[in-house]
C-alpha cells in the first residue's frame, strides 16, 4: 500500500473563495500580530474594487492624527490628511469622536468622495485583570458600549493600564458604488477591528508579562546582591525564595557533612520558630535570632525583621524577612559597655583619690600650696587661701597681695632651681591681724613620667605657733620641776624632823655597844642595822632638797663632768674606769641640780654593780628630730656590772625597790625617773645579768 502525501489547502482550513483565493475573514484570523491587520484590510478593500484607501492613526502622546498605512496613495498625497485631535472643525476628527462611519462627498483634499470608518480598541468582555479582580471598570467594554461622543483624551484602562488605539479607515469611492458593496466594506472594517482589538489585548498582556519578568529579575538581582540574608516564606513558613546570604544558613550545600546537616536543620527550626512567634505577636517585627554558620560553625547573632506580604487582593501571602548580622554590633556594644564601665570605675578611683588627697590636704593643719611647672599656683588649701586669697578670684586685700608676691618669688626660684627640695623662712603677714608671722616653708618637686617637673608642693609651718607651743612646754616643765622641788622640800622637811631624833637614837645605840648582855646581842644588832637603814633613807630624802634654783640653759655635758669630778675618788677606789664620749650639745633648759642628782644616782648605781671594778661609759649625742624644733639630747650610761635580773627590770623604777640589799634605799632610780619625766624625757634600761646595764635618757631640747 502506498501513501500519497496530501497538501493541506489554505493552512488546513480548506476554506477558499470561489475564485480560489483565501477569504478575507480567514486571512484576518490567520494574522498573529496586530501590525498584520491593516495591510490585510487595505488589500481586501482594493480587491473588493475600491480604487484606494488609507488608515489614519491617533498618536495619544502628541494628539497628532496621521496616516499609518495606505494603499495606492502616492506618498505626497498622504500629507494632506495630517490633522490633530484638537482640530475640532475637521469632520474626520469629529467622526473619530462619534465612532460613526460616514461618506464625505466633497472634501478639499480628495477629488472623489471618501468613505470614513472610525475604529477604536473595544471588546465585549472586560479585560483579564478586571475579570480577575471582579471589576467592571474596563476601557474595552466602555468603548464597546459607547453611545455618546468618545473621550479620546483618556484612552487608558484604569484597571490594566492598557492604552487604546483610535484610527480612521478612509476609502476612496468611485462615482457609482452599489449599496451592497458599501455594506460589505463596513462589515470588513468591523471584522478587522474585532481581530485587531483581540490581538492588541494579547500583545498588551504579553508586554506586561515581559515587563514583569524584567522587574522580577531586577528584584531578584537586588535580593541576591544583598549581603544580608533575605527570605521569602509562605503562610506555612516554608521558604519560597532566599538569597545567597540566606542560603548559607538554610540550604544544604551540595557537598555536605553530618555537622552541616544538623546546623542547617537547627537554623531552619530556629527561623520558623521565630516567624511563628512573630506571627503570634502582631506588631512585633524585630527579633534576635542566633544562627549557626553552616560552613564555619560559628554562632552569629542576627536581628530578623519580618514584614508580612499580601497578594493584590489583600490575602496574606507569607513573610519577607531580612536579617541583619548584629554579632559585631553587639560585640562592639558590649565592648563599649565594658569600656564605659572601666572608665566609670577608673573615674571613681580617681575621684576617691582626689577626695582622700583633699581630705589630707585640708587636715594637715598647715597652709599648703601646689604650683605647676611654670610656678603658677594651682591649688591652695583653706589655710593657704586665708593667707594668699582664693585661687580663682585673685585678691583685693593688699596684705594677701604682698604675701602672694613673697610666695611667688620663693616658689619660682625653687621651681627653676636644680634642687629637689627646699626650705626657707618666709615673712608673711596675717591678713586678719596684719601682724608679721614667720613661716617655715618646705617644698618638694613632683616629676612626671619624663622626669620633668610637673608640680611643686610647698607646706608652710607657722613658726609663731611652734614657738608658742614651745613656750607652753617650757612653762609646763618648770611647773613640773617646781612641783617636784616642792615635794622634795616637803620630804626634806620631814626627813629633817626625823633626822634629829634618829641622830639621838643612833648615838644612843653606839653608846650602848659592849654593854648589852649576850642574850640581847641579836636584838641590839637588829636595832643597829635598821637604824642605819633609816639613816640612809633620811640622807637620800634630804638630798632632794635644794634651794630654789633658776631654770636656765646649760650644757648637759658640763653637768655630767661636774658629777664625775665629784665622784672621781669614789670611782677610783672602786677600781672603775670612766670613759666619756661627749657630742656637741645645744644648750638646754633643765634643772641643773636635779640632773646632777640623776647622773650621780646612775653613776653610783653603776659603780655599786661593779664589785670587782669595771668600766663605765657615758656618751652624749644631739639627735635632730623632724617633729621637734631642737631635737633631743641622748645620754647613755653603760657599765660592765652584774646587771639586773629580768624579773626585776619592770620594777626597778618603783620606790623602795633595791638590788643592793641592806645598803640600798630603793629611792635612787625612782628619783631619776621622776626628774627625767619632769623634763619631758624618756628613760629606758637594757640589762643582761653578768654583762652589764645600759641606761638611756632622751631629753627634749627646750629653749626659752
Amino acid at each position, binding site marked *: 500500500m502506498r501513501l500519497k502525501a496530501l497538501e493541506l489547502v489554505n493552512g488546513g482550513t480548506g476554506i477558499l473563495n470561489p475564485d480560489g483565493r483565501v477569504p478575507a475573514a480567514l486571512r484576518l484570523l490567520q494574522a498573529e500580530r496586530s501590525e498584520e491587520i491593516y495591510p490585510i484590510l487595505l488589500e481586501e478593500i482594493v480587491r473588493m474594487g475600491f480604487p484606494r484607501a488609507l488608515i489614519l492613526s491617533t498618536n495619544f502622546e502628541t494628539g497628532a492624527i496621521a496616516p499609518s498605512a495606505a494603499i495606492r496613495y502616492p506618498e505626497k498625497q498622504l500629507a494632506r490628511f495630517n490633522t490633530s485631535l484638537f482640530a475640532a472643525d475637521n469632520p474626520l476628527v469629529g467622526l473619530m469622536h462619534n465612532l460613526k462611519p460616514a461618506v464625505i462627498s466633497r472634501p478639499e483634499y480628495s477629488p472623489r468622495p471618501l468613505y470614513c470608518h472610525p475604529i477604536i480598541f473595544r471588546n465585549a468582555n472586560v479585560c483579564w485583570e478586571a475579570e480577575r479582580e471582579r471589576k467592571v471598570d474596563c476601557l474595552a467594554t466602555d468603548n464597546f458600549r459607547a453611545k455618546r461622543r468618545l473621550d479620546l483624551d483618556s484612552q487608558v484602562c484604569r484597571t490594566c493600564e492598557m492604552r487604546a488605539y483610535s484610527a480612521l479607515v478612509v476609502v476612496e469611492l468611485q462615482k457609482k458604488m452599489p449599496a451592497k458593496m458599501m455594506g460589505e466594506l463596513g462589515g470588513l472594517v468591523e471584522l478587522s477591528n474585532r481581530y485587531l482589538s483581540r490581538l492588541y489585548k494579547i500583545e498588551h498582556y504579553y508586554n506586561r508579562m515581559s515587563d514583569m519578568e524584567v522587574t522580577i529579575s531586577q528584584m531578584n538581582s537586588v535580593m541576591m546582591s544583598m549581603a544580608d540574608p533575605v527570605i521569602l516564606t509562605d503562610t506555612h513558613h516554608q521558604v519560597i525564595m532566599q538569597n545567597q546570604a540566606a542560603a548559607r544558613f538554610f540550604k544544604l550545600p551540595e557537598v555536605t557533612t553530618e555537622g552541616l546537616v544538623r546546623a542547617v536543620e537547627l537554623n531552619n527550626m530556629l527561623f520558623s520558630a521565630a516567624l511563628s512567634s512573630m506571627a503570634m505577636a502582631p506588631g512585633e517585627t524585630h527579633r534576635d535570632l542566633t544562627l549557626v554558620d553552616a560552613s564555619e560553625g560559628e554562632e552569629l547573632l542576627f536581628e530578623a525583621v519580618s514584614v508580612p506580604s499580601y497578594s493584590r487582593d489583600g490575602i496574606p501571602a507569607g513573610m519577607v524577612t531580612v536579617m541583619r548580622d548584629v554579632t559585631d554590633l553587639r560585640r562592639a556594644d558590649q565592648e563599649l559597655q565594658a569600656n564605659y564601665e572601666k572608665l566609670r570605675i577608673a573615674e571613681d578611683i580617681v575621684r576617691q583619690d582626689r577626695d582622700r588627697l583633699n581630705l589630707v590636704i585640708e587636715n594637715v593643719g598647715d597652709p599648703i600650696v601646689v604650683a605647676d611647672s611654670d610656678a603658677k599656683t594651682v591649688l591652695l588649701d583653706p589655710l593657704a587661701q586665708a593667707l594668699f586669697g582664693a585661687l580663682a578670684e585673685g585678691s583685693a586685700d593688699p596684705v594677701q597681695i604682698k604675701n602672694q608676691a613673697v610666695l611667688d618669688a620663693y616658689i619660682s626660684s625653687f621651681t627653676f632651681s636644680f634642687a629637689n627640695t627646699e626650705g626657707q623662712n618666709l615673712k608673711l603677714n596675717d591678713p586678719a591681724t596684719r601682724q608679721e608671722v614667720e613661716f617655715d616653708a618646705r617644698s618638694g618637686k613632683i616629676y612626671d613620667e619624663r622626669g620633668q617637673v610637673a608640680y611643686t608642693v610647698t607646706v608652710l609651718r607657722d613658726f609663731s605657733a611652734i614657738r608658742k607651743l614651745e613656750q607652753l612646754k617650757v612653762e609646763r616643765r618648770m611647773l613640773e620641776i617646781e612641783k617636784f622641788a616642792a615635794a622634795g622640800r616637803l620630804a626634806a622637811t620631814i626627813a629633817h624632823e626625823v633626822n634629829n631624833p634618829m641622830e639621838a637614837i643612833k648615838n644612843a645605840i653606839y653608846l650602848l655597844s659592849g654593854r648589852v648582855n649576850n642574850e640581847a646581842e641579836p636584838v641590839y644588832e637588829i636595832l643597829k642595822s635598821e637604824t642605819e637603814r633609816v639613816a640612809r633613807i633620811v640622807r637620800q630624802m634630804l638630798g632632794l*632638797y635644794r634651794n630654789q634654783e633658776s631654770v636656765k640653759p646649760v650644757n648637759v655635758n658640763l653637768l655630767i663632768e661636774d658629777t664625775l669630778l665629784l665622784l672621781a675618788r669614789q670611782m677610783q677606789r672602786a677600781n672603775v674606769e670612766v670613759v666619756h664620749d661627749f657630742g656637741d650639745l645645744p644648750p638646754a633648759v633643765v634643772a641643773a641640780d636635779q640632773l646632777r642628782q640623776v647622773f650621780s644616782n646612775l653613776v653610783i648605781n653603776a659603780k655599786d654593780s661593779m664589785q670587782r671594778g669595771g668600766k663605765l661609759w657615758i656618751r652624749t649625742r644631739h639627735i635632730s628630730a623632724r617633729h621637734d624644733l631642737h631635737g633631743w639630747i641622748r645620754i647613755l650610761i653603760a657599765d660592765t656590772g652584774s646587771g639586773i635580773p629580768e624579773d626585776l627590770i619592770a620594777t626597778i623604777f618603783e620606790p623602795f625597790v633595791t638590788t643592793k640589799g641592806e645598803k640600798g634605799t630603793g629611792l635612787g632610780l625612782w628619783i631619776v625617773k621622776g626628774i627625767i619625766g619632769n623634763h619631758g624625757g624618756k628613760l629606758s634600761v637594757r640589762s643582761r645579768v653578768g654583762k652589764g646595764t645600759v641606761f638611756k635618757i632622751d631629753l627634749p631640747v627646750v629653749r626659752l
Partner: protein
Amino acid sequence: MKPGAKKRSVLVVDDEASVLMTYKLILEQQGYDVVAAPTSKVAIEAVNSRSFDLVLCDFSLEQQHSGFEVIEVARKKNPDVPCVLLTGYATLETADQAKQKGIEVLFKPIDIAEFLNTTAVLLRSDNEPIKEND
C-alpha cells in the same frame, strides 16, 4: 691618851636635848672635857668664860640663830680654834660658806666613825694620824 695629860676641852652645841646628850656622852667616852650648850646664848656665854680646843656646833639653833654666830664668837677669842658645823640640811650653800671660813662640815645623820675620826684629827697635838676606831 696619856695619863696625867690635860684633858682636851670640847664645846658641843645642839638645840635638840637628846642629841646634845648623846654627843656629850660619846665625846666624854673618848676622854674629852665636854661642855654641852642647848642654845646659842648658853654657848656664847661658855665661850666667853673659858677656852676650848674644839667647837662642834649645830647649824640651825633656836629661834633663827645659826651655828655660825657661835663659831664667830669662838674665833674672835681664839682665831685658831678648830670648828665643826653639824647640819641636817645638806645644802651646798651652807657647806660652801663653811668651807670658805675654814670650818669642817658634818652632815647629819653623822656616821659615828667619821665623827670620831674628825674630832680626833682636829684635837691631836701633833700631826700623827690617829688610828680609826670603830
